[in-house]
């Protein structure tokens, strides 16, 4: 789990993790900014900007396998853990620290890593 404690930015509680079905993603609007949050089948959470740098595909609608996401529009792949593109020369995705709280809520900080 990412370290969420040492930061000035407030921690945002996005509510229960089961809003996101296992292996899928959903977009959350936070302070007017859209963030895609993903929940992998092995229980990890990832948060990134919500559109693909290639042609603005909606990343939360992509296919997720482990930490690799495939954009639904043109199949560009990214590793959500780092934001880095896989097999294409897009720029990396902005990622945000996100973790599961002890009560099962999604907690996120809006400071890009």
């Amino acid at each position, binding site marked *: 789990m990412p370290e969420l404690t040492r930061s000035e930015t*407030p*921690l*945002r*509680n*996005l*509510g*229960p993790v089961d*809003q*996101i*079905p*296992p*292996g*899928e993603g*959903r*977009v*959350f*609007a*936070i*302070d007017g900014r*859209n963030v895609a949050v993903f929940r*992998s*089948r*092995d229980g990890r959470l990832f948060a990134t900007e919500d559109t693909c740098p290639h*042609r*603005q*595909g*909606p990343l939360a*609608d*992509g*296919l*997720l*396998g*482990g930490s*690799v*996401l*495939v954009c*639904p*529009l043109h*199949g560009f*792949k990214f590793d959500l853990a780092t934001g880095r593109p896989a*097999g*294409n020369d897009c720029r990396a995705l902005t990622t945000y620290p996100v973790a599961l*709280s*002890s009560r099962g*809520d999604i*907690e996120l900080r809006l400071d890009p890593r």
Partner: protein
Amino acid sequence: MKKERSRLVVIGNGMAGARLVEELLARGGGDRFTVTVFGDEPYGNYNRILLSSVLAGSHEPGDIFINPLAWYEANCVALRAGVRVAAVDPVRKVVTAADGTAEPYDKLVIATGSAPFIPRIAGLEDAAGRSREGIFAFRTLDDCSAITAYAARCRSAAVIGGGLLGLEAARGLLERGLTVHVVHLMGHLMELQLDARGGAILRQKLEGMGLQVHLGKSTREVVGEDGKGGVTGLRFEDGGTLECDMVVVAAGIRPNVALAREAGLLVERGIVVEDDLSCPGYPDVHAIGECAQHRGRVYGLVAPLWEQAEVLANRLSGREPRASYTGSKVSTKLKVMGVELAVMGIRERLEAGDEEITYEDPSRGVYKKLVVRDGRLAGAVLLGDASAAPVLLQSFDRGQDIGPDPAELLFPSSGASAPRSVLDLPDDAQICNCNGVSKGRIAYSARNGCRSLQAVCGATRAGTGCGGCRRDVQAILQDVLGEGGLIEDPAVHYYVPGVPLAKPDLVREIRRLGLRSVSSVFAALAGGREDAASKPGLASLLKTIWAGEYEDERDARFINDRVHANIQKDGTFSVVPRIYGGVTTPGELRRIADVAERHQARMIKITGGQRIDLLGIPKARLPQVWRELGMPSGHAYTKAFRTCKTCVGSDFCRYGVGDSTALGIAIERRFQGIESPHKMKLATAGCPRNCSEATTKDLGAVAIEGGRWELYVGGAAGSRVRKGDLLCVVEAHEEVLRLMGRFMQYYRENGKYLERTYDFVERIGIEKVRAVVVQDEEGIAARLDAAMEAAVDAYADPWGEANDPVHPLQFAQVLVRPRASGQGDGRDGREAPEEQVVAGEVR
């Protein structure tokens, strides 16, 4: 308890030995065997075919390594590089190395390859009895380096041997700026591949490039200056002489069989092997590659050697313990000094009744020849223009009847706009028209480490759109890498890239282990590693296998199949309601119009499949749109039965001879939403005028006079255009439905994921399809019919999820968290969650 592994010893680390190890590991052979490989040369394994490119300076030695030393380490293969094997004892099952160490084995593979044949020529040694400086063989990387180094101080070279190897050596030396003479014993060049006329045309072409060719010359002696070592020229049996500064001997190869002969194995020209590639009397000793002799033949090309490696790997790994090698059909496509050459089968008339058809254009260096026996292709030579090779090769491999005018085969693209070979195009030519990838970009990635079609497509995105250019990409790859440089990614045989099993094996394992969900397949068959791109293919397969018992995990579906609509470039969706057979009513049209207006559909479009498409609908509004339409899903977003297009048929059309409209509606009602490896688009036509274009559909029915229907399968009018194959002619609508259903089920069970029917039918062959579907030669028709019936019965309209979603946020667009707040709930100092709102209007 872990089973003790057997010991596999491989003698030879060349193209055959290393390939066997690769194939074996790819089949999980590492669990069965500890592998030891002896290699004569102190390197990993390299691509011998590309040595000529190293000689020519277009490749660096480092470029041609297939597996560097680190690869062996990473795969736990013990490589004894630079260690010769001195003896094999097939009774005690021990190999003894030259350094005296003994290596016991349970299975032994001899892949010692060949050595250059050095003809009896005087003067190979100088007066002092040492090998004369300036004379080289051309077989290994070390030979190559030695030739290159020596050539730097030479002005002219003679190559003894005018076969493929000799000409390749000559090309390398020409590229290095030398005057090059090829001295050939025979009356024409490349007599193993070419007839005399072809050889003559090749000679003319090569002489045009600056090569000096001397035919019918037997070399008596290499001449050197007395006492100085080195070479000054050649003297021939006919008394003639030739001045040169160095000599390369490329007069053929001989199988390395000494080791096998001393071991007491049966050796003729090569090491004799049976169909199981074992040596007679020694079932645990195998031989493959250039050193092996199978059914009287010794192969010197790379393709047969790979086939042998594959068969043996299948046997040893236990994947197919009874796999057998029955010989290879020899065909080869190569470049001789940049001149295209494709050769298959016999090169001239052998039996009475054989016919030859030839075409020549000496000024262009083009020569083409077919040898025809009993209406089938028995052999072909294409020199200077191999564009007809794919067609000929297919005909040759399949033993097809070549039709009344064989000459047509020689000119595959004669006609208005003969497309040029992709190899003739400049580097900036766009090859992949979907992703805008140039020929130069593809070639660049091939030169920089991408050695399989998959790797190049992955790196450049070429061929990842409609896939129509993949053949061209393959051709460029082959051109850059040479025949042996191209490797086939084992994943091409996998059903999906992330699970290392071909479809039949995968299906068997899924059934055996009772795997009903995609995640359970990854857990059981892929070491727990999820692969995103493999998920939809697995979901499709599991649904075909388990039907109602399939455990549906929605994250395994592509977004279209999670929300039953087609995603558009702006992230909105298109909605296509089902209109059976394309026949609608005023009321239905009115309703569609109202819905489109209410939800501000951005475009209303009549589709190619005679449906109505509402575009620009946000995800969150889909359920409401469906409810208001009150029509079933048209499945315009998924790999399934899509539509059956119809013409107006016999009720109105004055030409109609069959009720294509009623038939189309019946087809669509029965098969709507049936999932398949790829989409299926259908059509019915009421007469042979074929207004609904039924002959270029995945399945099509065309009415003909007499109340009958022609059934076509495998038609296409997309990125490829292909006329469907006539499957059969039937009498009644019910027959059409039954046979279409049976074909679909056969395709569902045997098609690869994302393989359209037109590729499927070509791969299986229409005769086989007909034998199974129409003639029921395999006795599975009843089972196929029952399986299709079950699939039809299991059908449910996915748009029913408008009222019964599988997840409360299935159609959520954006979950709004309206404001930042520093307020926590007080219990743990963190803020409390807020009410979640589903908003449809955002984006």
